[in-house]
């Protein structure tokens, strides 16, 4: 079964300089029980994608076309109330900036109780559940810390509390925007394992955004690669990591310091910069930085299926070159 089906989604931001085309014709599906990773350049639209799914787009954003079908319903066309009902029980999110989850003037305990408002259990039970969940994510002294405010926790602790809160509602789709960047490697691995375990237990799907390619490789079943507002490659994590087909994916992997064994004070980068999303160039969105570019690249490539489990958007694939 498909839990989330995003079809031809486009999102614009109205800015002083003009319309910024943050997402263009984005399509993908997430199947039940799958963990799908999203990687890509900073600013390529990952957070915008998430905001569209949970209906939290900024005021100056316009969802200009597309459908977002969650458990069979197109949530873009629902009323605010209907949408809140569906998202409230089905989807939970861990934001990139944990301060977005936390209310700075309420204690962590209060916030963790509030999030359980749907449960009809007693106050004591809810408190216990909150303490248990804090323990699951490795917060020491959970009992006494319930009375503290978010700013009294370290960055990584705030992140773990956000994870704990997202898990408390037992969602069918968990969306996580860089949930482990603020954590040390031992905790990161522990949280990844917890997510896997939980996913098996409550049968949820996870949409997991991260810049840490190692974490994506270890946790995810599939990976989506985005560049400048488009999906350029999508496939089984093994296929993509072992045999990346899009030149951007290849370039991205080549920059990973985790793959560079010799100490180097000059790290590899992708030459050039992301195109101006207000004044989009014609043709392939990656062409200005692509080292394998050919003459047809001045026209837009279509998404091309290279195998049952892998697709990429590059002309080389139809020219039998990549």
């Amino acid at each position, binding site marked *: 079964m498909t839990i989330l089906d995003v079809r031809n989604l486009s999102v614009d931001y109205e800015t002083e300089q003009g319309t910024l085309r943050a997402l263009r014709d984005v399509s993908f599906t997430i199947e039940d029980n799958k963990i799908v990773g999203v990687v890509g350049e*900073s600013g390529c639209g990952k957070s915008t994608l998430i905001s569209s799914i949970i209906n939290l787009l900024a005021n100056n954003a316009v969802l200009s076309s597309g459908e977002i079908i969650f458990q069979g319903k197109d949530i873009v066309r629902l009323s605010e109330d209907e949408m809140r009902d569906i998202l409230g029980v089905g989807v939970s999110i861990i934001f*990139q900036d944990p301060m977005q989850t936390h209310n700075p003037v309420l204690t962590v305990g209060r916030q963790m109780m509030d999030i359980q408002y749907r449960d009809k259990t007693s106050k004591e039970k809810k408190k216990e559940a909150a303490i248990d969940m804090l323990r699951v994510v490795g917060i020491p002294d959970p009992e006494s810390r319930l009375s503290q405010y978010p700013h009294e926790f370290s*960055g990584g602790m705030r992140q773990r509390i956000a994870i704990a809160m997202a898990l408390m509602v037992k969602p069918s789709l968990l969306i996580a925007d860089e949930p482990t*960047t603020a954590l040390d*490697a*031992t905790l990161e691995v522990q949280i990844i394992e917890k997510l896997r375990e939980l996913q098996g237990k409550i049968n949820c799907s996870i949409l997991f955004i991260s810049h840490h390619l*190692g974490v994506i490789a270890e946790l995810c079943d599939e990976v989506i690669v985005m560049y400048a507002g488009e999906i350029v490659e999508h496939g089984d994590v093994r296929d993509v990591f072992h045999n990346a087909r899009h030149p951007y994916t290849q370039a991205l992997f080549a*920059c990973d310091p985790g793959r560079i064994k010799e*100490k180097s004070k000059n790290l590899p980068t992708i030459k050039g910069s992301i195109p101006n999303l207000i004044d989009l160039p014609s043709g392939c969105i990656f062409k200005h930085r692509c080292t394998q570019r050919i003459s047809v690249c001045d026209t837009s490539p279509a998404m091309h299926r290279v195998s049952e489990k892998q697709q990429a958007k590059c002309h080389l694939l139809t020219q039998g070159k990549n």
Partner: protein
Amino acid sequence: MTALLRVSNAVVRFPVPGGLMQNMLFRKNFIEAVSGVSFSIEEGQTYAIVGESGSGKTTLARAVAGLHHADEGSILYEDVDLVGLAEKQFKKYRRHISMMFQDPVGCLSPRLTIRSIITEPFKIQGIKNKDLDAEAKRLLEMVGLSLDFASRYPHQISGGQARRVGVARALALNPKLIIADEPTAGLDVSIQGELLNLLMSLQDKMGLSMMIITHNLNIVKHISDKMGIMYLGKIVEEGSTEDIFTNPKHPYTRALLSANPEPDPDAVIDRIRLVGEPPSLIQRPSGCEFHTRCPFAKDKCVTTAPQVTTSHANHSYSCHYS
């Protein structure tokens, strides 16, 4: 080589959470987030601090930057003790020591444009004879952001772009020591490489010293000369980065380095796993404070705190059995 910064036995305390009951129970009304830390940074060198989330890294950094008062110890900058300096005298050093904060968006004032944010240090220092537009342009270019970002507000840029704004601001006054708290969290590997190459080239050109706090072990290996590993407010191991990566001694360091996920879905990683739960700062463990998590702990570890062992090349660690 002369040390630009020399921190000795620094201690930073916070009031105990939970109020009266906890205080009566443990007869203490503070926790030591930084509990006797000593290290030094040579001119033109990069010192990395890694360690458990919540181990006091940010607190230590804030103390060095004069943003938090150290309760004990000394922080010598060019042989002047910054601890206990009145704000007036400290102001002089504020130009020299520049801090990049951990929360990328949270630390940028939401009502200021990016231009105002990155040129604010000139105003704070009362520097008047500067063309701020030209400075804004120079700084944005330095961090690879186009000029049209100048008129945007923090909520109108992506997380990674906010991180680069933080770097631009930190570089505004040509500091001598940069303290960077998680400078690359939230950046894709290509932009991360660009940012680190930028910092390293500035270091070469201007003799900049850097204190980098990060959970990203992949970058530590490439960019730092020396590193310290923190656990529960103390540095438990210190040495040249090369030594530590090839021959980690302290069990926490070994667990940490072995946890790092590899960018290969088929990697088989032989991890040293920590046991138990993160300890409490209110009631610190006896003996070696790591014994509650250590997979190698023996009886002696529970009762006796280990001395610091210094092996060759100033590689030191606190463990009975390493």
